[in-house]
């Protein structure tokens, strides 16, 4: 099987550490080779583009150039990008550089100051896309050791994975993660807010708006009897999980729902040790949920 280059992005080294740990463990278990991109830099996220556009595109393009150079054997580099924000910024940079000659000219000019040359060969991939379309859900379900039967999961995609450039799933109603949950034996809850915005960094900057957006998502998931939420973005996970106490206090809710990365749930289904999946890093521990699932049959206490 081919090798994937891996672009962690800043979040996977801090608040999203569990995402990195669980993703790497799952890929190791699935026998997929993953190599970290050498000396990668921040993608610029949304903040950088609010200040200087040419700089923002150049920042992202540097990572794409490094990926082109790191893959020595002439194979087209595939860059695994687990953070939704990084994924959007990198695909957007690529798309705008190929669509608008003015953009390309300016970014090329900036890159040449650092003696870098952009060819546009890197393929930016989200791990969810790789697992569903390269590895295949059949392989995934064959490797399940601990069936999650009966576990009701709300799949939260967030905004920036399918909007507006991704081509591996539908922009309005993505289903990849829902199918993945079924492949693991669980039950994906029908939850129309799956791509509704979690407010990004607004939970820190304008909490009165940011917290309310997260409250909507959580309340609806609980109402639909989800036992846990899984996400594929470090910022979504952080917002939905870490602000639950504050949402409960501010709005009189009583929400305690585990919010995990989809790779953590996969790891659990594969029977990998919890320490390798970063489960201990969660604020709302899912263990009591999972311990009620034994050998594929739901055991009621």
């Amino acid at each position: 099987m081919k090798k994937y280059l891996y672009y962690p992005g800043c979040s996977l080294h801090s608040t999203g550490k569990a995402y990195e740990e669980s993703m790497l463990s799952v890929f190791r278990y699935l026998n997929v080779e993953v190599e970290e991109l050498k000396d990668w830099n921040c993608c610029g996220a949304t903040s950088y583009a609010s200040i200087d556009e040419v700089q923002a595109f150049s920042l992202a393009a540097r990572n794409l150039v490094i990926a082109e150079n790191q893959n020595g054997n002439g194979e087209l580099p595939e860059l695994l990008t687990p953070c939704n924000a990084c994924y959007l910024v990198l695909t957007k940079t690529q798309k705008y550089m190929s669509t608008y000659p003015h953009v390309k000219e300016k970014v090329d000019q900036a890159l040449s100051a650092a003696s870098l040359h952009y060819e546009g060969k890197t393929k930016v991939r989200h791990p969810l896309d790789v697992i569903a379309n390269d590895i295949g859900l059949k392989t995934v379900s064959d490797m399940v050791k601990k069936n999650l039967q009966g576990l009701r999961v709300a799949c939260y995609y967030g905004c920036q994975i399918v909007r507006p450039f991704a081509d591996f799933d539908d922009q309005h109603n993505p289903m990849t993660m829902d199918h993945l949950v079924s492949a693991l034996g669980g039950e994906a809850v029908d939850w129309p807010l799956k791509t509704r915005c979690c407010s990004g960094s607004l939970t820190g900057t304008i909490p009165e708006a940011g917290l309310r957006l997260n409250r909507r998502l959580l309340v609806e998931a609980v109402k639909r009897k989800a036992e846990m939420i899984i996400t594929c973005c470090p910022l979504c996970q952080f917002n939905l999980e870490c602000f639950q106490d504050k949402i409960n206090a501010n709005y009189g809710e009583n929400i305690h729902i585990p919010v995990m990365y989809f790779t953590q749930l996969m790891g659990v289904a594969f029977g990998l040790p919890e320490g390798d999946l970063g489960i201990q890093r969660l604020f709302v521990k899912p263990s009591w949920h999972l311990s009620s699932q034994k050998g594929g049959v739901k055991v009621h206490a």
Partner: protein
Amino acid sequence: MISLFPLGFVENKSSPDPRDKMRKIKYESELDLKFGEQMAAKAYGQKLLSCIQCGTCSSTCPLSDYMDYTPRKIIAMTREGFRDEVLNSLTIWLCSSCYACTVKCPRQIHITDVMYTLKREAIARGVYPKRYPIPIFSREFFNIVRKQGRNSEAILLIKFYLKTNLFMMFKQAFMGLRLMRTGRFSFKRDKIERIDKLQRLLKAAESIEEVRT
């Protein structure tokens, strides 16, 4: 929410006529009639000018509740040349780049890019709401990445709270401790090896004029 002036009213401090200080209309001579086209050119194409004012953007926007002008109004005002109102608005900063409007717009207007363009224009002209937290957050993020090549979340948050609301930092301290205890928050500065090369790249990019189509 902070509101700059009652919705729909034009504040005209410079006028000597007291009846002119607060009125509901703006005369054409007070508008920047080229503003719409300039912004359209910067935000990828002339599509902005073909907006049909259907309001799909405002109804899909998860944050329009908190905005002083809805996205539909911002597009209309930009096109008609209400430069100062648009650039001073909180709307452009509240946009969280979720792209819901962009994929739903029946005229394929890159609304998220319009918002980015307006943010940059507001910064370039120095007219953004100065004490509003979001531009400060963006600036701090920008500075950290320029210096280190990577963002350090803990340092970003501390710098942000120092410049905006110290009280908030203490309110958030408990969460910070929990994050540290679970190993998800670190004060180590994450720096790339070839920062010299990256800074040369950014310096070159800085001197290049904004992308225009």
